[in-house]
């Protein structure tokens, strides 16, 4: 019984990780139609940002406040990845609007450079980020049924990010501007919106979200130059399955792929589970090529 309950929890937990990793992509891909193959590398930048903050805390600050580093690391990851994203947009992405296929190729070049950059700076081997002690341990629901705090924390973080995105995109003036630019650039520009600035900020925001994901992933996995490559295909599948341009789609896509992965892995094995999930997603997309949550609009057709 406990096993099955825990499995459900695992499914939700893995879903939340996928959602977190895919959120930034939902912004850059969904809103801007830029396929950022370097998205995984922004996750990596976030992870290394956490590593740097941890090192600063352990080296220069009293040990008593070491556990608080994570609260600094999350915004630091967001900003570092965001700055990288902003620079990238200014240098490269802005040449690629409306050239979705080319954006795949160019950003893949970016991912190569960023990986090698990480290797040059931090070395090829993995580095260790110590989780803050308040995240160690687990919530004891029943004897034998423990829910790790880290996984609960990531779930909360996802909810927080989602809420933030929701308010930013749908309840703020800035969000209105973003949506205006993404839907009709010329019209928005003629209304006096600085579309160039909006583009750069949106891309930086999406990249920053990837950074937060990277920071959170240090709790669960390895931190190395190739960290991002482990997530890139999964996150794209999440966004595509959910439906491009829809926040709900990303949530649903993350949930389906996450629980699908864990359930099939539990029933069969990890290799087969992964193959089955991807095959099912590909088949599903044959039936609904635009994903679960489609925005039916003529402008998207061509």
């Amino acid at each position: 019984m406990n096993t099955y309950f825990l499995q459900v929890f695992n499914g939700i937990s893995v879903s939340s990780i996928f959602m977190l990793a895919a959120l930034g992509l939902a912004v850059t891909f969904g809103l801007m139609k830029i396929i950022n193959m370097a998205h995984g590398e922004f996750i990596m930048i976030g992870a290394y940002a956490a590593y740097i903050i941890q090192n600063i805390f352990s080296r220069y600050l009293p040990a008593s406040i070491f556990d608080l580093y994570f609260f600094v690391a999350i915004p630091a990851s967001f900003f570092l990845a965001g700055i990288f994203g902003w620079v990238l947009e200014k240098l490269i992405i802005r040449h690629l609007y409306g050239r979705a296929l080319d954006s795949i190729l160019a950003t893949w070049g970016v991912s190569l450079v960023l990986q090698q950059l990480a290797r040059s700076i931090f070395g090829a081997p993995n580095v260790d980020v110590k989780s803050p002690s308040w995240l160690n341990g687990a919530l004891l629901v029943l004897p034998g049924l423990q829910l790790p705090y880290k996984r609960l924390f990531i779930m909360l973080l996802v909810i927080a990010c989602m809420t933030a995105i929701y308010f930013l995109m749908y309840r703020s003036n800035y969000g209105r501007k973003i949506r205006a630019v993404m839907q009709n650039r010329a019209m928005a520009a003629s209304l006096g919106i600085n579309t160039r600035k909006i583009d750069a900020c949106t891309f930086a925001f999406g990249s920053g979200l990837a950074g937060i994901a990277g920071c959170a992933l240090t709790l669960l996995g390895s931190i190395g130059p190739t960290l991002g490559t482990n997530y890139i295909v999964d996150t794209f599948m999440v966004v595509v399955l959910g439906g491009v341009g829809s926040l709900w789609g990303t949530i649903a896509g993350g949930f389906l792929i996450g629980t699908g992965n864990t359930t099939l892995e539990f029933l069969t094995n990890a290799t087969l589970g992964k193959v089955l999930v991807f095959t099912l997603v590909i088949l599903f997309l044959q039936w609904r090529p635009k994903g679960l949550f489609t925005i039916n609009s003529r402008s998207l057709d061509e």
Partner: protein
Amino acid sequence: MKIKFLPKMKKSVIFALTALFVSSAFLSGCGSSQASDSSGSAGDSKDTIKVGVLHSLSGTMAISEVSVKDAEMMAIDEINAKGGVLGKKIEVVTEDGASDPAVFAEKAKKLLQQDKVATVFGCWTSASRKAVLPVFESNNGLLWYPVQYEGMESSPNIFYTGAAPNQQIVPAVDWLVKNKGKKFFLIGSDYVFPRTANKIIKAELKSEGGQVVGEEYTPMGHTDYSTIINKIKEEKPDVVFNTLNGDSNVAFFKQLKDAGITSKDLITCSVSIAEEEVRGIGADNMTGQLVSWNYYQTTDTPENKTFVANYKSRYGQDRVTDDPIEAAYDAVYLWAAAVEKAGSTDVDKVKEAAKGIEFKAPEGNVKIEGENQHLWKTVRIGEVQPDGMIKEVWSTPEPVRPDPYLKTYDWAKDLAD
């Protein structure tokens, strides 16, 4: 401005020619210039002996292989500082295998055919070794392979300085059954080494009355182990035998700890985690867990004290040494000793001379077994310490004879044909 008068068609022809010549220039590049200076025996010119170092310096395997390359370079420099081999300096040709077996094969061909090196130190993964094996055999080259592996191989052109299964896995299982319990859960990355290792373990457990309660493989780069940990919890094994590789280990141990399982609750024994990997995992995530190797940085020999000190002073105090690093270091010395004994770098002569050669290695005495070109090695089971070092908890009293095909074990009869 002569170009101007060329018709436009010819422009593109010229372009094609330039492009081709550029690439063929790269093709023939260093090779052709160096090919000429090789005399009689391989890689042996007037005052230097050329050797190849072939590891992944880029790509996913660079994580592990760069340190191994460093150890080989250190050994070569040490030997050169003492006057070299046969009175000649060793000259190194480094190649990058780029974590791609096909590139390994290509670079091995280059080292043997173009550079005509006397020997090659290199490879890490079984895939890369299998890729270069036919190259070394058909060119009669010599490869020194420094990593523990799954066995079932004994190429006449390869010397294996890492552990064969009977020098790592087999004794570890035996010790675990006697000291920790009989119920085993096997977890590994989905590739050749873990699958073969687990076949061996299963056969051994059967003969020792042990039991396998679960066997799971995850794709390379798998990042979520919650489901498998859940399966482990359900099966309640005494021992988790871990053959995961690379990044997956980090995820596995971090998540195992989160699930409330520490070495006090459940012992794991890993055979692909050495000091270098422990650093990436975080020592606190696997304190008290077991590993099985032939060498640790803490191994108590005078040779090791010098080795560790030299390695650190050369590459940085924060660097650690581990088993493959040490095995790679040994390989260079063993080759040098064999060349001295043979009085030549000729592959056949070196192979003949290498039989039975002994070396006081950092891990203690090692000896080349002539029959299969593996090393006699001491087996050590160690426990991960909070500082990331590994403390030896048990070792074989003597070096163990290598037996890649497990011929001397009754239970292994059906494994190898």
